[in-house]
């Protein structure tokens, strides 16, 4: 079991570099390789890293097949309006899925594939289950949900074709001090809109917990989906109150104006966040202990409290202008 070669796609992102840092501490991990369009966000000791754009299929295929990984953790997923517009996010995510999943299919040593997914895949259509578990049907109702469902389907097809277990890790909304989360950004605005008629509950997950989920799924060679999110739930109004922000109640058509204003203020609201604020987003995390070996350590309320306690980015001007 020891000395496994592990590939992390999307190692440059916050979640990717956290997963890499945790994998470096695992006994069973031998060589650790990361590929992303951006360098890792934190210092890594053992991992090797290659810069490659998601669209650079040939280079990615060359790097991946040369490495011939035993375990692949596919994290190259762009959440709409996190670091890219929804259109760019969809394009980059699709390109990364084609490049990485296509390349790993050629690796003879592959034993396990773990892919990043989200509870957005369950969809929030009228009459949809309030708290779906892993066996619930995949019927996404937002763009991000469709993107994640496509990755799950592609990885699942690939796994069946080459006989490798695939574990989609379905995350709640990921929040962290360095995570470019559109939900977190919106909740930290001085004035936050919320749906006064619905104000439904939602659940989130802290980036550390999400990273633990990927490492556990890889270590256990998980072969089924797992929901990873914090316990409990919170509504937008409660979150706003806990952060001492000003709640701005909205009913329906005025959301268009709120979206426009939020975008102008630097916190654009993507479709899946809007859906969360209107229809809520919960999922059953009770199988985490059974499937991953640990259960959620914190509650959604605690993660939201931390969201408001994390310091803002402070821009320090250069002492000497060089350009």
């Amino acid at each position, binding site marked *: 079991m020891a000395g496994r070669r592990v590939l992390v796609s999307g190692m440059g992102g916050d979640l990717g570099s956290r997963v890499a840092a945790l994998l470096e501490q695992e006994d069973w991990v031998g060589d650790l390789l990361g590929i992303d369009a951006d360098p890792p966000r934190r210092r890594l000791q053992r991992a090797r890293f290659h810069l490659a754009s998601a669209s650079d299929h040939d280079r990615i295929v060359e790097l991946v097949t040369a490495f011939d990984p035993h375990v692949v953790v596919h994290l190259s997923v762009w959440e709409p309006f996190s670091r890219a517009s929804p259109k760019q996010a969809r394009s980059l995510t699709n390109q990364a899925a084609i490049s990485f999943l296509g390349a790993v299919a050629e690796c003879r040593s592959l034993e396990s594939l773990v892919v990043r997914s989200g509870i957005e895949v369950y969809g929030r259509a009228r009459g949809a289950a309030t708290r779906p578990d892993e066996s619930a049907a995949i019927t996404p109702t937002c763009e991000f949900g469709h993107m994640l469902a496509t990755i799950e389907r592609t990885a699942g097809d690939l796994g069946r074709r080459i006989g490798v277990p695939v574990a989609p890790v379905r995350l709640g909304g990921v929040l962290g001090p360095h995570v470019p989360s559109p939900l977190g950004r919106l909740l930290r605005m001085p004035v936050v809109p919320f749906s006064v008629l619905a104000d439904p509950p939602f659940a989130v997950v802290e980036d550390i917990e999400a990273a633990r989920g990927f490492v556990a799924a890889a270590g256990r060679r998980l072969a089924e989906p797992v929901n990873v999110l914090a316990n409990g*739930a919170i509504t937008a109004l409660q979150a706003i109150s806990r952060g001492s922000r000003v709640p701005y109640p909205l009913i329906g058509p005025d959301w268009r104006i709120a979206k426009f204003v939020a975008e102008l203020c630097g916190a654009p609201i993507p479709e899946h966040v809007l859906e969360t604020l209107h229809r809520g987003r919960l999922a059953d995390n009770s199988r985490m202990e059974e499937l991953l070996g640990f259960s959620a350590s914190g509650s959604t309320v605690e993660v939201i409290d931390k969201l408001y306690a994390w310091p803002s980015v402070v821009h320090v001007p250069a002492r000497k202008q060089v350009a």
Partner: protein
Amino acid sequence: MPLDRSDTAAQAASSAAVDTGSLGILARWDIDDWGRDATMVRAAARLANLRWSTTIGGHDRLPKIGGAIVVINGRRFGLTPWFVALNLSNKVGRPVRFVGRPDAAPFGALARRLGGLLARPDEVAGALRDGQVLIVGASGTFDPRTLGEIDHRLIGPAVELDLPVFPAAVAVSQTSRSARIEIASAVKPSPRRRGPLAELELTTRVGNRIARLLKEFGGARTGTPLDWLPFSGMGGD
């Protein structure tokens, strides 16, 4: 960047925010995993108690921990499952949810905050696995002494998970303050059945038991003259 963070700063910041914020009271409301708001449930139960004086019998039969289903009769437009869930929550000291909430704002949102679940077998199964007590209502009727149809698909998960199903009769007066909830002992599925017939037969037996309970309640015209008086705590119309 350390992988573990200290919670001290977050806790201090959040408690300060909650204490000083003008909407601090909202922040302290507790939403559980299913979207039930305990504070709102307590407030609604207080309102219900202003209107009705409810007598509850047999609540000690409900398990202290673990899942269970309580099947009740219902009156059309009466929101009987809501009423029973609110009263039982107060009585047994653990969350009791009702099955059959709408899913459109604002009533669906309000029902969810009061502990409502959608009438879907997978939703019922998930809540039972999570150790919740659920109220499942028969379809509403205009005659309070008549039992409507019970959806056997909502009882099925209890059979699959081998959890108790309790029949309960509910009588709520429309004119006086009297209301009564009587929970009978659990009805077990037939050990002869291994397939879906088990839940069908169990539903029929639960329905028969509720009908018997309703008959035992008696009506305003069959009780003693004392029962005819309003505010007597029993009977009524």
